[in-house]
């Protein structure tokens, strides 16, 4: 998520969460709002006030921010403010890439994980409930992610329930490695929430346990598979995600075959270009393959599934790297705050259609990036 640096004008003791507003709010409702002041006299009662100039008379929590950064914030966005003044953007009202990061712990240690994980953390759920209470109830899509969300156990059920009650129109996509879903009763609890539009996306990196487990650094393959079956028994909407790298690209067609024969009930399958951050960056030597160099396998896998009537997508890929017959499967899938394009992309006629890059790809990306002209 996007971070903005701020300077607290008075000491702050706790994390503050609030919803951005540019217009003054009735006094009785102010406690949930963070007011972006524009030179006027500051009033009390807001969770915090953001200012761009040092104010002689700060009221409560007042944070001094850079004008450019403030422009990033719109009415309805939800942010948290750390005691040191840093502002984390938790939710952008105009984005479809919002996620609830419910834990940073994980029971896998994937060789290409783009996050740094923690082993111990405080319960984040009160914080998550607060966010849910603040975000706009017309939000189209919200992700639930981690770490591994299922590690918080029944709190996850409470979070999904809160989403159902507070955001009944919002589609939820939960990312989980599915290992904990091996427990049928746990799956039952998730499904019994009866969220109106919940998709559970689960990664599968290889068609055999040895290779998959080697990639995730845990003995999870058959547990994940049991998890998929448990979800299917409830007709839960399921997606499968495959991050592609040097350790698994060769058998993508066989993996597609494996998925079709064993999990034909899944709603969606996404093949994803790797994000080279954190753990992935450290292991880059054993992981990196130019995405252009696995086109052959990717094309076989994607068309194999499409022919069979499966719903298949390619995430995080640049059009110029892909053969044209695969363009139709691409989605703009990178969260906007870390979605970039290269300088030369500005000259490309297909910029609008292209998913672009992860910010981390600036240093390392395919050697086959090129400007494409129409006709």
């Amino acid at each position, binding site marked *: 998520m996007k971070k903005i640096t701020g300077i607290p004008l008075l000491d702050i003791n706790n994390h503050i969460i609030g919803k951005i507003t540019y217009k003054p709010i009735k006094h009785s409702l102010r406690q949930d709002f963070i007011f972006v002041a524009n030179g006027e006299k500051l009033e009390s009662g807001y969770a915090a006030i953001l200012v761009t100039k040092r104010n002689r008379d700060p009221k409560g929590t007042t944070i001094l921010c850079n004008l450019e950064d403030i422009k990033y914030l719109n009415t309805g966005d939800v942010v948290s403010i750390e005691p040191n003044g840093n502002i984390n953007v938790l939710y952008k009202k105009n984005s479809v890439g919002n996620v609830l990061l419910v834990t940073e712990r994980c029971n896998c240690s994937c060789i290409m994980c783009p996050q740094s994980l923690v082993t111990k953390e405080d319960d984040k759920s009160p914080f998550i409930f607060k966010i849910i209470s603040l975000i706009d109830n017309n939000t189209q899509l919200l992700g639930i992610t981690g770490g591994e969300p299922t590690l918080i156990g029944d709190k996850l059920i409470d979070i999904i329930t809160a989403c159902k009650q507070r955001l009944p129109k919002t589609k939820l996509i939960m990312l989980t490695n599915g290992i904990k879903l091996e427990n049928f009763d746990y799956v039952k609890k998730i499904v019994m929430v009866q969220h109106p539009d919940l998709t559970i996306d689960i990664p599968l990196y290889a068609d055999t346990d040895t290779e998959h487990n080697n990639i995730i650094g845990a003995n999870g393959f058959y547990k994940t598979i049991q998890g998929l079956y448990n979800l299917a028994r409830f007709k839960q909407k399921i997606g499968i995600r495959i991050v592609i790298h040097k350790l698994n690209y060769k058998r993508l067609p*066989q993996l597609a075959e494996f998925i079709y024969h064993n999990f034909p009930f899944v709603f969606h399958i996404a093949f994803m270009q790797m994000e080279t951050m954190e753990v992935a960056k450290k292991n880059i030597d054993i992981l990196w393959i130019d995405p252009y160099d696995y086109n052959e396998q990717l094309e076989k896998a994607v068309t194999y599934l499409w022919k069979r009537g499966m719903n298949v997508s390619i995430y995080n890929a640049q059009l110029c790297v892909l053969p044209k017959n695969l363009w139709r499967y691409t989605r703009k899938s990178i969260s906007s705050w870390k979605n970039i394009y290269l300088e030369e992309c500005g000259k490309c006629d297909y910029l609008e259609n292209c998913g672009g890059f992860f910010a981390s790809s600036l240093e390392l990306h395919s050697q086959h990036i090129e400007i494409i002209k129409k006709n």
Partner: protein
Amino acid sequence: MSYKLLPLRFERFNNDEIFITNEVGEFTFISKDKFEQLIKCTLNPQDETFLNLKAKQILTDTDINPVIEMLATKYRTKKSFLNKFTALHMVVPTLRCNSNCRYCQVSRKDVEAHQFDMDKSTAKKVVDTIFQSPSPMIKIEFQGGEPLLNFKIVKQIIEYSEWRNLFKKKDLEFVICTNLSLMTKDMLKYLKKHHVYISTSLDGPRDLHNKNRPLQATDNSYDILIEKISLCREYLGHDSVSALMTASRFSLERFKEIVDEYISQGFNGMFLRSLNPYGFAKRDRRMLGYTMEEFVENYIEALDYIIDINLKGTYFVESFASLLLTRMLTPFSTGFVDLQSPAGIAISGVIYDYNGNVYVSDEARMLAAMGDNKFLMGNVNKNSYLELFNSEFIRSLIRSACLECLPECSSCAYQSFCGADPVRNYSEQGDIVGHRPTSEICKRNKKIMHYLLDLVKQGNGKIEDVFWSWIIRRPIENNVCITSS
């Protein structure tokens, strides 16, 4: 490094390769050398073949229980046709017929022989029996004779079924199998109102159709049929009418013409069927019959021709190949009664004769018409649903109609794609278990499956596209890129 083999079946496919399947019909081809290594447990775990076989649960070098669990899950899916019990209910409103088909397999009766009509109270009992089936899907198919000769009973069955379904709320569908010659606009209005599909018979171009299927009133049944097909389409919509062909001796060497006829009549698919040895087809087999080898040879030629037509851009399905391919290439079960194990007789499909007699299959009542009541389940006027469907007779019949335990079938590499047919075994070979090496059906199925597998193995992407367009019933689409928009 050691590994264990899981249940597998295999067959020498050609000089160099072994065809190998797992318990649910997922298959691969491996060289003789690799096969030898496989069974001696000396395959290298880094080997591509090893990984392919492991991913298909043919061997495992790690856990066994979760692998069995995966196979079991797929096995349940493949056998899911069993969950719902009998969905197809064929009804014979009359045995009278105005056709004069040379190969009539049902031993039709004279147009004036009204004693072969179903009566009202039997019709009601038939529907009452049908609606006791636990299946959430009920398809009532009117057979004959010519059902239009007793249209009032057809109407009674449709209306009474609809009334019963107000309470049962099943997915109810009607099909009427008719030569169409007696079809009128009023009948069509009625059929439209009640959403009835039409299945008719078209055996080929005019001369061939007229030779196989003359009417009693005129030899030129073809012109009447074509005229009526277009009338049906006008009233019911283009896709409400489908047609079947049956190949007689006169049809051999003419399959391409038959395909062309179907296409020019605007059908987007056909079923190339061989003659069943019942009724006149059996009586006159010297004149009408042919060997299975002859049929398969013609079938394959026609199949190649049909594939070619698809490759040239016309979406046209051959249903038997489509069925087999669905069984070979997808994890799903199919509803076709003849290709199931346990056999689909009685438990997937059943037939109610004009007099209320219930038989396990259409072929069983054809046999009965020839004087052998071996497969009579009972009569709707005398027996309850449970007496009909839960009898020791049906139980023992189904028990001995599982490929998994039939001699030769049990180890056949094509088992998962095939089906048991005790009625056919009985009528051809004198007992329900049958003798595979001399079975005509086995010969036909194996040859056609081998041919299809060979095409799949060759890996021609375009042919594969055609097959998948048949399986998922979606015409091949030109690859649309964003560029073209």
